[in-house]
């Protein structure tokens, strides 16, 4: 009986564990191994034999020696420093407005703001690419009639055009996280604030904002990781913008190395670097936030 009890959790866990190990842990281990591997070819193409060998940190050195890959890291950091705070401010304002006592049709607007999240990233990027493309875009045409010439796809602007797509897509989702947290604030807290004479702004600043901080921290961590993973938006916009190269973001660079150049060693090294960067950045952010708490 006792043995059966001890076995039961493992038997119940086994379907999960099996898939987890096969499709998750092993490939991660394999990718890390691949990132330390180089190939050597004999003959003009390797027709006389191809051998793999341990390469130490060569692939990592190559990845980091590539100026376009390093530029892509700088690019997403800049993107994150600007886009994440802008989106979080927008998200907080939207959530507070929709949850304020004087809001009209909050259910309708909640759904409306959330709607873009239901549109897959690739489709959203295609939609926006036509809103950016001169000759197709009513926005560009309309601004042109007002005497304002804009180029949403130039080297200086396209990163912010991508930021706009990302904000459009994910603000509604993050807003819902914040609203959920707002809804969990007990009514007594509001009543107490009212008794103390707090107006709507004082209520938002001193009561609601501190209490939704955990939700904002969560949204921020997701957004930092998401920023490092930018891929679909630049890949789609590349077909209409000459300012986006095949290594525009770190993920794009890893994809290009793996599936365009068929250079799996460097691709694996780049992927490991991205994962490590996401881990380190999230960790630093959480440390900063928790230090302020204590």
């Amino acid at each position: 009986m006792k043995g059966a009890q001890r076995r039961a959790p493992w038997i119940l866990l086994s379907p999960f564990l099996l898939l987890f190990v096969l499709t998750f842990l092993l490939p991660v281990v394999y990718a890390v191994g691949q990132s330390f591997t180089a190939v050597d070819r004999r003959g003009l193409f390797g027709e006389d034999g191809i051998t793999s060998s341990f390469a130490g940190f060569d692939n990592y050195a190559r990845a980091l020696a590539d100026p376009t890959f390093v530029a892509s890291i700088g690019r997403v950091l800049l993107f994150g420093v600007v886009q994440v705070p802008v989106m979080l401010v927008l998200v907080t304002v939207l959530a507070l407005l929709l949850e304020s006592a004087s809001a009209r049709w909050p259910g309708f607007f909640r759904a409306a703001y959330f709607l873009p999240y239901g549109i897959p990233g690739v489709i959203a990027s295609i939609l926006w690419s036509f809103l950016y493309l001169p000759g197709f875009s009513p926005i560009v045409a309309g601004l042109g009639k007002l005497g304002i010439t804009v180029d949403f796809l130039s080297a200086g602007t396209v990163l912010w055009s991508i930021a706009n797509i990302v904000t459009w897509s994910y603000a509604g989702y993050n807003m819902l996280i914040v609203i959920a947290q707002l809804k969990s604030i007990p009514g007594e807290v509001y009543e107490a604030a009212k008794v103390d004479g707090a107006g709507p702004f004082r209520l938002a600043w001193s009561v609601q904002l501190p209490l939704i901080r955990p939700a904002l921290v969560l949204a921020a961590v997701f957004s930092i990781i998401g920023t490092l993973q930018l891929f679909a938006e630049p890949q789609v916009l590349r077909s209409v913008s000459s300012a986006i190269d095949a290594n525009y973001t770190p993920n794009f660079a890893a994809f290009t190395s793996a599936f365009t150049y068929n250079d799996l060693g460097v691709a694996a090294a780049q992927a490991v670097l991205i994962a490590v960067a996401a881990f380190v950045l999230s960790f630093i952010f959480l440390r900063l936030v928790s230090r302020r708490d204590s």
Partner: protein
Amino acid sequence: MTVTSRRAVLEAVTTVGLGAALAACGAGTAAQPVNAQPTIPAATGPVKLTYWTWLKDLQSVCDVWNADHPDIQVEAVWIGAGNSGGYSKMYSALAAGGGGDIAQVEFQLLPSFLLQNGLVDLSRYGFRDHLDSFRPADISRVSVGDSVFGVPQDTGPMGLFYRRDVFEEVGVTPPATWQEWLDVARAVRQSDPARHLEGFNVNDPGNFTSYCMQAGAEWFTVDGEEWVVDLTGEPTRMVAQFLDQAFGEDLFDLSLGAFTPGWYAAAADGRISSVITGSWGDALVESVGGTEGKWAVAPMPRWPDTGFASATLGGSTAAVMSTSQHPHEALEFILWMSTTPEAIDLMIKNSGIGWSPSPDFIGTVRQQPVAFFSGQNYNEEVFVPAADGQNPDWIWSPIYLELNDALSTAVRTATSGGTSLADALPGVQDRVLDIMRHKGLRVRSAS
């Protein structure tokens, strides 16, 4: 992207890792390269072949063959076009030991598949007896020494498609030389500031490569088991300086690469008035709305005193994958497909191939005037001489895509006020040497 979790990061790693896992089996552990193994004799019974291709409706061509050859049945399997999925699928299949018997591979990507030992040397199955059925320049692009790794199936000799009505309005004629091209481009710019003679695709500067090919460059040559790279020679420098001048005078519209969505709109209203591209461009030009009868075709501009009449852009070969158990039968079918008038006509009609691989037969419909192109018999007038006027010494490298992206970066820098393209070439060459060494190849620079 913003809501993806830590799990998604790991998943991204995993995806790349899985690809790595699949491909590594092929690269690292292949027992003996396919072309060092004994040849596979012709089958004694009926065989079934699969042909991985992105040509549309190629099955209709196979069906004609199948009706006459009950012992060799060919099935066309549609895969994503080249770099948009098809090649990834082929690399994975090679690594896993499966895949089709025949595969469509673009000329410029053929050597990249050789890096994986992915293709059968067709000279071991008697292909050298059929070399006369093809153009020598096409054969030189699929050969390494005496080995031949693909059969030309569809090529792309280049010409100049232009809006005849716009040229007449501006008062210019198609440029015969690149020097004249500059004059025509300036005249078009002066006629209307919104107009450009041509667009240039910064993300895919394949046209630059083709112009160098035309000018007589030999970027890659083979010396024994060593590659020799020459991206800084005189022909390449001349073309780069030409482009630098054109970029400097704003003669190209850099936001309108040929055949992008914006390009079609611009070509329809005359903001773009010409395109220098492969013969396959005719089908795409015909889809520019409301311009029937307004286009005409001229030969590609030439370099004075040097180079060749034309170059190629695009084009595909039919290659036999190393995993095929029936190379003999596969080659038999491919030869029929690429040399028989009936098959060529069908490939033009149903699959839209850009140019017949056979020097003896360009296709029935291509021997007649075409109303869309001002009633010009442009295929015989322009593209037959273009197909014959090719640089016979040009071969493709095993790092075409890497080089194309490096050139794209150089063009992007040159067109945004940085180092000129001509000055960037030595750096691109160094990068090419580095990439090839990293692939485990032996390589040196020509100079």
